[in-house]
């Protein structure tokens, strides 16, 4: 059972890593293709620009998800630099309770947002629906909620490979 959960967590991390890699490489290639199309053939593919811009949103959220598992978020860390070692896990637990609650709230409102976008049939570009691209917002915040919740229990950041 324990082993199963560990494997599941590891699988999730691998999916995150490779989604990030594919989006970043895809963005570079698509943008460079577009430059060639525009400057040499004086044309361009209309779906590249919106797709690349959506890539930025995905990178933002996946970067933040990975940041949560590595403890790499931008924060004011003066207190953590100066408090004694044995109080650090208390500090981690307190900040994680706050962080998990805010992420939880954000997951909830973004699920509501997604359902509305689906029901109203909002499109991202052309006739492509927007909701699959927006899916990363609730996924990202739910995963971060879980990770912060884990930190409340363990009290310290696990080593991440």
């Amino acid at each position, binding site marked *: 059972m324990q082993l199963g959960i560990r494997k599941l967590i590891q699988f999730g991390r691998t999916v995150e*890593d*490779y989604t*990030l*890699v594919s989006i*970043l490489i895809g*963005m*570079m*290639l698509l*943008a*460079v293709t*577009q*430059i060639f199309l525009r400057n040499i053939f004086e044309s361009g593919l209309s779906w590249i*620009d*919106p797709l*690349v*811009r*959506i*890539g*930025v*949103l995905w*990178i*933002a*959220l*996946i*970067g*933040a*998800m*990975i*940041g949560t598992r*590595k403890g*790499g*978020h*931008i*924060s*004011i*860390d*003066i*207190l*953590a*630099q100066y408090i004694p070692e044995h109080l650090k896990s208390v*500090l981690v637990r*307190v*900040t994680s309770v*706050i*962080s998990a609650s*805010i*992420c939880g*709230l*954000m997951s909830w*409102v*973004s699920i*509501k*947002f*997604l359902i*509305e976008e689906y029901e109203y049939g909002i499109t991202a570009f052309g006739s492509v629906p927007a909701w699959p*691209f*927006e899916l990363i*917002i*609730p996924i990202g915040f739910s995963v971060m909620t879980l990770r912060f919740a884990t930190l409340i229990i363990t009290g310290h950041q696990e080593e991440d490979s």
Partner: protein
Amino acid sequence: MSYLLTSAAIVSALIGVPLFLVILFGASIGFSQSDIDLMVLPIDLYRLTESSVLMALPLFAFAGFLLSEAKTADRLVRVSMAALGWLPGGMMIIGLITCAFFTMLTGGSGVTIVALGALLLPAYTQSGYPERFSLGLITTSGSMGLLLPPAIPLILFGIIAQQMDIPGVDIADLFVAGIIPALVMILALYFYGLWAMRHAPAPTQPFNVKELLSSANESKWELGIPVIVLGGVISGVLVLSEAAAVTALYVLIVEVLIYKDIKPRQLVKIMQNSMVMVGGILLILGVALSFTNFLVDAQVPEKIFDVIREKIDSKWAFLLSLNVFLLALGAILDIFAALIIMVPLILPIAIEYGVDPVHLGIIFVANMQIGYFTPPVGMNLFIASYRFNKPISELYRATIPFMLVLMVVVLMITFIPELSLWLID
């Protein structure tokens, strides 16, 4: 109730809750008070997809992290040593220039000190510089280059100003405006170093054409990067996001296929590390969109302006107090978060006082640059202390003289707007 929640948000920022969550917290409080559905938060976050220029941030950062993992630093030190080693104090210029090269791509996130520190510290001490002087110079150099194109802080300032519909803020203008102030900073540190070492100047290296040519040949691929960025953007052939894509792809090919410094399997890790940094910046930007909209709707900048106008009536007095405020801010807050949170509040006020928005951008970033090594909490002090295994108090003493020199330069940048604006007009 609202005061209680607002204080809770401030306390959570101070104890180290990630800043994007603090901003979300603040925005949720504000919107709930005004009976606005919190669904506005994901809606505003999705607005990150409205602007193409944002793509420049992940791509430049990826390029910068790639360079810092490759042996670029060794090659750059070698070529600049060959080009400038014959100058008195040439080693200092070499350190400053190579640091600036890294920082302009990685945004002073501490990557510079980590990537270059291990190389520069022994190079300085072997060239005859005292250890404390070398430590101070490297820690200071770690944020040098934040004003050189394609500096991510300047891009971010431009993006924020454009989102606020402030006219006359072009990112290419910001790039040009930063060049002279950045050079003045480098020269000021160089001349201070010459003066400080006047009793025991470090030996110089004889100039050697062969070495210069062979080292330039070795690093020619990397020396081409500024040409792509500056040439592409300032000539107008490429827009910024395109230049970023070309740069990232170019650096990827050069480091993986030509120099073979980076193995393909290292790429995942490098992408992870760079995107954790960028993801943080982008999310802060995305959630701050909501928050600043709320502040602007509530006319907060106007209210602050009314309050400070009673105490400060001249533009120069305003700029001086702005310097003090930004220095303190730069010491406690990450430069990107500081830009995203403070520019929407400060920019409208500065315009009321008649400050040119481009000039403000340069003042803002220049102050933040010093904040990185302002005791007691500047981030680069901790990074250098960790990297060189020295007590933090020793770094305070080592860095303070350099900090004072740069403070004088920041005052010059503030009170002589022509330094920034001359090349634009």
